[in-house]
């Protein structure tokens, strides 16, 4: 069964460093998303991406964040200058081209900023 994959599973970085989280969505899906979950809190929407552009972003997704689909399979989330409060589990999700648009999530990348 096709699934969303994410790498790395765990990333430790120092405050101020740039990180890139990588995702490979399900191959025939057209909509891509990033969410994050701070430990013990809700899963929060960050950004959605369709047709090579951002279709919606939350107020969390500020200028420090960017997303890219560099080729036909990868979808990346970049954080330019990490802060301690960026420590969280980051989930990538994808959904297909038609309703009802179930979103399928990857296993997550645990980002720890020290």
């Amino acid at each position, binding site marked *: 069964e096709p699934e969303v994959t994410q790498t790395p599973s765990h990333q430790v970085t120092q405050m101020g460093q740039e990180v890139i989280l990588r995702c490979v969505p399900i191959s025939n899906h057209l*909509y891509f*998303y990033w*969410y994050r979950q701070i430990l013990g*809190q*809700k*899963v*929060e*929407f960050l950004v*959605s991406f*369709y*047709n090579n552009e951002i*279709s*919606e972003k*939350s107020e969390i997704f500020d200028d420090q964040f960017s997303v890219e689909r560099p080729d036909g399979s990868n979808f990346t989330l970049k954080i330019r200058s990490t802060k301690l409060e960026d420590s969280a*589990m980051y*989930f990538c*999700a994808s*959904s297909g081209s038609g309703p*009802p*648009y*179930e*979103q*399928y*999530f*990857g*296993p*997550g990348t*645990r980002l720890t900023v020290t």
Partner: protein
Amino acid sequence: SQQGEEDPQALSIQEGENATMNCSYKTSINNLQWYRQNSGRGLVHLILIRSNEREKHSGRLRVTLDTSKKSSSLLITASRAADTASYFCATASLNSGGSNYKLTFGKGTLLTVNP
């Protein structure tokens, strides 16, 4: 309550019993989805119910949706120890561009099924 708010926050039952979790939301939705998350792991999609549906079944799962009360329930019948996990409801609303949906998650219900 906030969008996609589940109750109870925690539920502990014996294997074989049924587990019911509830979710309330505030705004209009296109569909509502339930997910399971094992501790520290990813989100597994369980079931989706559209706003024009009232009930849906999938195996041991039964989901209801009452749009007039803005609430949904997830029933797991004949629970097993392996069902131990956190369960989240997520409401899907169309984005402003009308092209796709973002999910708004609740805080979840931690279900413990004791063998």
